[in-house]
């Protein structure tokens, strides 16, 4: 033991059961620089034990039977002091056990829950909206980054929560944000995506899902995907969370490039966000879906669709989707009166992207979620319906969770002789239905060659519980034309009605 030092510290009038002390001693012995550790009550017998093993020194010799001796043998004095500080800190805050056997007890408040985790860093809140603000405020006050899944939160509350978080150097994701990927961990509605060097900030959940899945399916990965909520880039909220997220990604060594996805923000907010992106010093792509392309430069590029954003950040064009051969493969009946495309979407952002792709070909669809500045009329009768919009989900679950409402809409569309193409998104991942492709297939019914062509894209990966390849195979076996992205699916739908460029 040459060079080793023995250091004792004494806590006066302190008693802890010897089983607990032995457990702590073992933990302490495993810390760097510690050769041996012993925590013992200073009884005569214990002191003799310590002395025999050469662990009794200085303060420890004077300890009495109601004192605790903390003794370490360490490689050097600094390691000894550090270990003793750790031990005293642990003694002061023994964590609350959730046992026995991982038992059934659940804390009833965040404050109590915090005591059961060693390094908790975020809260995920999905209580009804009327209570979510209070819970989020508590989480932020407790020093937690907060993801608010709940909706029905006023803009004023959203702003005040985000201001509170900003003042405490914390991030608020949401409200009404279904998706995040933090350090490779999917939160709420998210996909199993490998870790990589691409950071994503997204105002919309499905936008984040589509881009992260395209990245994953092209062999790359995501460092972090941060969902900031659909209204973060509004004038009222002023992109508080977006700017915080950009700060975080800038400081994150794992992130080498950044993608920002949002509806077109107010011009003033857009400028502030653009300036921040340009300053971040990492290659960046901005996708303001449905907005006019903005002035770019300084390493910042603009993408008009989610697919284009993914392609840019991947630095390659995505696998080319051969629309012509897809058309040849697609089963089509002889239905001369059918000219309409009807999109039945679970993901609002995907619905928007489809309209962007259509608009690029000069085609306007009627929509309950129209592109900014567009009226919801269509001369050709095309319809793009966001079934996840508030008017459909007020009294029932989101169609990503409960496929039944969309199944009904699909069945009706299949019997409509004016519809040429039914365009669908099939969203996989945690939180989503266990077999969304199966639900679509069941809804197609027996329309056969007399029904419209069904075109879909699947948002997911092979790591997802539903498995991407399985879901695609299921759809294809039922005669659905599956495109590799939502933008490609829309392009195929347009080609099928002869509206290709």
């Amino acid at each position, binding site marked *: 033991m040459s060079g080793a030092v023995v250091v004792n510290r004494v806590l006066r009038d302190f008693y802890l059961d010897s089983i*607990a002390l032995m457990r702590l001693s073992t933990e302490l012995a495993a810390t760097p620089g510690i050769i041996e550790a012993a925590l013992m009550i200073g009884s005569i017998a214990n002191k003799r034990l310590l002395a025999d093993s050469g662990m009794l020194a200085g303060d420890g010799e004077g300890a009495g039977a109601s004192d605790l001796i903390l003794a370490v043998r360490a490689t050097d004095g600094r390691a000894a002091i550090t270990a003793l500080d750790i031990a005293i800190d642990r003694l002061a805050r*023994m964590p609350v056990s959730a046992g026995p056997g991982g038992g059934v007890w659940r804390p*009833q408040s965040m404050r109590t829950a915090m005591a059961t985790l060693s390094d908790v860093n975020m809260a995920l809140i999905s209580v009804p909206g009327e209570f979510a603000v209070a819970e989020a405020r508590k*989480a932020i006050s407790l020093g937690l980054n907060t993801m608010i899944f709940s909706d029905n939160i006023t803009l004023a509350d959203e702003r005040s929560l985000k201001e509170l978080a900003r003042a405490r150097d914390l991030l608020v994701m949401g409200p009404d944000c279904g998706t995040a990927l933090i350090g490779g*961990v999917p939160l709420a509605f998210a996909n199993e995506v490998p870790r990589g060097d691409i950071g994503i900030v997204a105002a919309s959940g499905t936008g984040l899902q589509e881009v992260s899945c395209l990245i994953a399916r092209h062999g790359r990965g995501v460092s972090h995907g941060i969902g900031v909520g659909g209204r973060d880039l509004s004038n009222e909220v002023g992109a508080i969370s977006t700017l915080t997220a950009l700060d975080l*990604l800038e400081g994150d060594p794992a992130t080498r490039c950044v993608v920002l996805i949002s509806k077109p923000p107010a011009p003033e907010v857009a400028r502030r966000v653009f300036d921040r992106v340009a300053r971040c010093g990492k290659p960046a792509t901005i996708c303001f879906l449905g907005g006019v392309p903005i002035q770019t430069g300084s390493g910042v590029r603009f993408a008009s669709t989610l697919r284009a954003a993914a392609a840019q950040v991947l630095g390659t064009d995505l696998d080319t989707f051969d629309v012509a051969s897809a058309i040849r493969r697609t089963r089509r009946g002889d239905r001369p009166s059918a000219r309409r495309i009807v999109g039945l979407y679970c993901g609002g952002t995907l619905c928007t992207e489809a309209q962007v792709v259509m608009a690029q070909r000069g085609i306007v669809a009627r929509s309950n979620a129209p592109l900014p500045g567009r009226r919801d009329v269509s001369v050709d009768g095309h319809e793009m319906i966001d079934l996840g919009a508030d008017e459909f989900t007020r009294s029932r679950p989101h169609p990503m969770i409960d496929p039944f409402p969309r199944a009904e809409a699909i069945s009706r569309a299949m019997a409509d002789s004016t519809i040429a193409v039914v365009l669908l998104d099939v969203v996989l991942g*945690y939180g989503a239905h266990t077999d969304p492709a199966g639900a679509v297939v069941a809804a197609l019914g027996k329309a056969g060659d007399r029904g419209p062509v069904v075109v879909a894209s699947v948002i997911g990966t092979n790591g997802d519980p539903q498995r991407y390849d399985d879901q695609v195979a299921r759809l294809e076996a039922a005669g659905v034309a599956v495109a590799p992205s939502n933008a490609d699916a829309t392009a195929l739908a347009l080609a099928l009605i002869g509206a290709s460029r």
Partner: protein
Amino acid sequence: MSRSLLQSPPQVINVGLPGFAQDLERRGVPVVHVDWSPPHARDRRLGDAVLALSGHPIVEAANRETVARIIAGEPVLVDVRPAGEVLAGLEDRMVLHAGPPIEWNRMCGPMQGAIAGAAVLEGWAPDIVAAERLAAAGAIVFAPNHHFGAVGPMTGLTTRSMPVMIVENRTFGNRAYCTINEGLGKVMRFGGNDAAVLDRLRWIAAELGPALGATLRAAGGVPLKTIVARALSMGDEMHQRNVAATSLLLRATAPWLARTVLDAPKLARILDFISGNDQFFLNVAMALGKAMTDPARGIEGSSVVVAMSRNGTDFGVRISGTGDTWFTAPVEMPKGLYFPGFTAADANPDMGDSAIVEAIGLGGFAMAASPAVAAFVGAGGAAAALDYTRAMYEITAERNAAWTIPGLDFAGVPTGVDVRRVVESGIAPTINTGIAHRQPGIGQVGAGIVRAPLACFEQGLLALAERVGAE
């Protein structure tokens, strides 16, 4: 903190949909799902007060100070003296009782019975009937023990001639007092007042009290903090179960008793009395509780409870930040197990200053340390005992690292009831208690648990909000 979101693996608290927590659990991500329910606050005004005081900087700072003072206490049992000698202002024809202030005609049967017995004991009346007449005529002054730095179990009676144990809080220099536990069965604290009860009290005053006092003075006092710590790991919670603590105290005092009490038969009587009463330490724990909470009183803005007490009619709560005000509500009936021959119909409502031990994290708050008590009081098995304590973490400000619970992996006992959390969660403090017969003179008929009435905490919260100006 924010940076650590991206730089350290996520550890998540999930509030709401359980599926989100299950997904994370399956991936091996540390996650705790909160068993959330909507805020309990019964009306808008209470809800607003909870919100206004939550995270309030004055309240938070005051609470930290309050709990730090409770935890910093170093209680030492130093002496035993007649109450009349040490309780300033305790006059002749004056009876101190448990709980908040109460008049004779509102007192429950056991309280009246005990007072009558005490009046005979003190020689104010020749017999029980005359004593009752005296009390009803207003010839006896009643006051709460708490107003004299004292506490007493059940009826909690303290009169001049009764010896009181003195616990000194060496950190702050204050002293607190409690009578000596009379043992089980027919005793004055349960309203007993017959000759046997009074004879035992006379022996305590004449022989036990002076001997114990001399012993403690000779020993230089007995430190109590580590006795409580050890007793917790031996299955006591210091309210219903005091067998380990009594043994430890007796072990610490026995050599000094032998040195002090040289008359062997007298020493034997004393040792017989203490070792024959598993609850002997209860009164010590109560004085200790009073000694530890008194320095925590009167901290402006504090929402921490510094006393809970019952007189058999009213439950009273004192909060550090609202001065000496008692917030009261009708006491509840204990739920528990009854001795053979008795049922809930015989039970007197909740009574005693003993809930002072819950105010310092013992008793019902430390139920997890005492699975045996959980079974005895009808609270269920060991798992249920753990849950009783875990629920108290929801309403307390701190965990006392000096007093830990082996069954909870040595987490400290939940300490410092925060009225904000009680009102917000609707979780009332759990108190372990003995149950007295509703008729005077019969004694203990069972034991169980009782909940503190929420109304006390609601009044306290509103008063604090007004005082802090946060309403």
